[in-house]
């Protein structure tokens, strides 16, 4: 099971993500730089969190237009598993690989804390090692995680089971519609989520609730 991590200037949870993939997958991911136009043959492509290009335009907007993102889109169209976390989620939305948008948190403040996530669909390739309705712990750290979609889109993704994770037990930290924390595309091979499962994978993190997500995403390829 081979994985790749996309590197863009300003991303800063790349090291966290590389550590998680290495510790769980047993093998370090390859890294792909912003100007690369091809991605090696891998089973999982991850866009980590951070502030690509400073988030000086709209979060993820500049990144979505970099050469490497055309390559990500091609791989996604071929059915390769793609996952974007935090800024990675914002980039996937800006690149049109996922529906909807992420607005500034309702509090208008950056927020870093632990929340509860409900597995809203345990049948995706990212969540099938959790139980349907299971509630897990997961940290968040973002300024723009307030998920929004127009009514028709929202109805469609809800109807098609595209909502993978929902903030649970009243812990919605940002005002997201329907408590949406993570979604998959219609084909089910692209996941975007605001919380950081890579920061809850070992005892030193105080819990391992995020592990099963990586095991699922990596395990598929094995």
């Amino acid at each position, binding site marked *: 099971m081979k994985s790749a991590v996309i590197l863009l*200037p*300003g991303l*800063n*949870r790349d*090291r*966290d993500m590389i*550590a*998680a993939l290495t510790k769980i997958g047993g093998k370090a991911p390859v890294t792909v730089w912003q100007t690369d136009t091809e991605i090696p043959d891998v089973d999982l492509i991850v866009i980590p969190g*951070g*502030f690509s*290009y*400073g*988030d*000086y335009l709209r979060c993820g907007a500049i990144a979505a237009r970099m050469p490497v993102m055309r390559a990500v889109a091609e791989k996604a169209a071929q059915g390769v598993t793609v996952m974007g976390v935090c800024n990675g989620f914002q980039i996937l939305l800006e690149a049109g690989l996922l529906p909807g948008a992420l607005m500034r948190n309702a509090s208008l*403040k*950056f*927020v*870093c*804390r632990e929340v509860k996530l409900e597995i809203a669909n345990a049948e995706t390739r990212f969540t099938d090692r959790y139980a349907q309705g299971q509630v897990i712990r997961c*940290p968040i*750290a973002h*300024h723009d995680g307030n998920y929004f979609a127009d009514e028709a889109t929202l109805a469609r993704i809800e109807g098609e089971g595209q909502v993978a994770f929902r903030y649970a037990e009243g812990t919605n930290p940002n005002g997201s519609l329907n408590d949406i924390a993570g979604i998959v595309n219609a084909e089910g091979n692209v996941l975007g989520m605001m919380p*950081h499962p*890579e*920061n809850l994978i070992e005892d*030193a*993190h105080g819990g391992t609730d995020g592990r099963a997500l990586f095991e699922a995403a990596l395990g598929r390829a094995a």
Partner: protein
Amino acid sequence: MTLSNTIPITDELVASHGLKPDEYQRILDLIGREPSFTELGIFSAMWNEHCSYKSSKKWLKTLPTTGPRVLQGPGENAGVVDIGDGQAVVFKMESHNHPSYIEPYQGAATGVGGILRDVFTMGARPVAAMNALRFGAPDHPKTQHLVVGVVAGVGGYGNSFGVPTVGGEVEFDPSYNGNCLVNAFAAGLADTDKIFLSQAKGVGLPVVYLGAKTGRDGVGGATMASAEFDDDIEEKRPTVQVGDPFTEKCLLEACLELMKTGAVIAIQDMGAAGLTCSAVEMGAKGDLGIELDLDAVPVREERMSAYEMMLSESQERMLMVLSPEKEEEAEAIFRKWGLDFAIVGKTTDDLRFRVLHQGEEVANLPIKELGDEAPEYDRPWVESPKAALPDFSALAAIDPADALLKLIGSANLSSRRWVWEQYDTLIQGNSLQRPGGDAGVVRVEGHETKALAFASDVTPRYVEADPFEGGKQAVAECWRNLCATGALPLAATDNLNFGNPERPEIMGQLVGAIKGIGEACRALDFPIVSGNVSLYNETNGKAIMPTPTIGGVGLIDDWSKMARIGFSAEGDAILLVCKSNMWGTHLAQSAYMRDLHERRDGPPPPVDLAHERKAGEFVRDAIQDGRITACHDLSDGGLAVAVAEMAMASSIGAAISLPMPTDPTPVLFGEDQGRYLLTVPRADKELLREIIDEGAARGLVVAWIGETGGTELKLPGTRAISVKDLKARHESWFPDFMD
């Protein structure tokens, strides 16, 4: 606007550069002629208080700065301390007070940016940040605005750069009404054989400019930071720099990548007084001259004068001396990260600092004297009068439960969650203890068991009441907070914030505090390896409380045994490690007297450094042996607040007794120093006896004062309070104040 180099030098111009007439005379004597306008700017940048430490140097020299683990003490960008296995921790704390008051978001943001740059300039990847923030009274009209801006600025920069903020302080006091304090700390990890210094070596080598472009922002910032405030402060806004954390993150990665190639001979970040300070420092330290060609400097704006380029404090810039044969490789790395790379000068053998601009030599000064001959003052000082112990026998009685609820729900002792939830406390995946405990703890990446602990402390009201004891206490409390996690305290950084040193009573505070800090650091083997002095923290002649912030670093050998403040189980015995059989009853200068009786008289609690050391070593040993289940030091609010904090952190209640039938108030709220609370399973009677006996054998009192359990906190002589109510009170002050 352009500022010509031919502007005539008048008395007013000299004064507006913060130079006194005798200091200007010193310049005339030194160079034997009238300086050019650019040269005057260079002198003002090098000789202001902020860069030259002219009032404090005499006293700073008395601080202990060496130790078996110290690889680099004060004088470089940051201190360096050996942590074993070929690795070192690199750290420093620095103030950004004046800019933050003028423009809170950018002032605080660039304070964080500056301290991070100091750390990675030395070759270290930043792994932890803290910040000590002090604001005016909550009801002062500017306070809320400053808190919003400063907290957002600290977060905005640190979060985007990608360093976890693991600790800090937030305090409110009217003395900061016109002058808030923003003290930013950063620490990084480096290999001991790959530490980079600012000393240039070799003649004729390229001096390279890296990072962001130079603009007009921050021109004269260091001079501004060395002046008192008055009502015209708004006019100073253009002297505050604008931060760009994205560029800084790229600069970090590019610098670390470049350092690996072996191309870097010397490196210095451009902080206060930008290009001037960094170039002079690199040359002077290496006994070399520097020649700069300003036409090669990447600029953001057109028609910038030499004066502006030399004094710009644009952020995210570095100056390096590179091996000529690696120039191309170096340039490629910087281009990859989208950063400017320009050869702007060379090292020379004539010991002159020469600046060329548009074919003209605009400055030609002796480089060593620019730094070494800066004025140094032995300013007159008077010792602060010592207060007698007040008579508190006629104090109005207050129910201890009411007092506790008021204290933990007050501006200064309430939860800081509102603040630290705006900081990324988790990034890098190594945070073992986040804000809210005694110290922040970060795992050493790549090592199975090692971790570093970080704490920042000072109790300004103690320092005001007795600078010497207060200085000791700041060090002792920081050291204690590290011990309370089980860490071996290694070394510290000091950030000395005071008023106008030209006033003897303020100078007396500075001298007293430095003496106290020195004494405590020597007694606790806790050397000062870096630091910063911020003077003139006054507005309209009113000084802040003396605030010597101490940032400490400790090493934990095995983090699986690390202690936390929350109770870990019901049925644990609670032990108080202290000095006296009465446990401690010193109420003068306590949070209790300030917040419940509005009294600020009397001396602070004295610090017995021999006891402090014994208590710390005892606690540390007990933690490292894995014998205790929780630990917390006692500080503001005394025993009652410490027990309450342990209960709130765990949602487990506790019942506390008294040493003898007596008035519970001094026992519960006294702030005697050198005290810790420990818990051990009550069922393990042997262990309990062992710990108590061992404490006694080491000359300590280890009193069994109560037990954990239930959902209520039961203090002696009053009603029980549910932990839920305590938490609600503790958590509500900040959001109620801010939102």
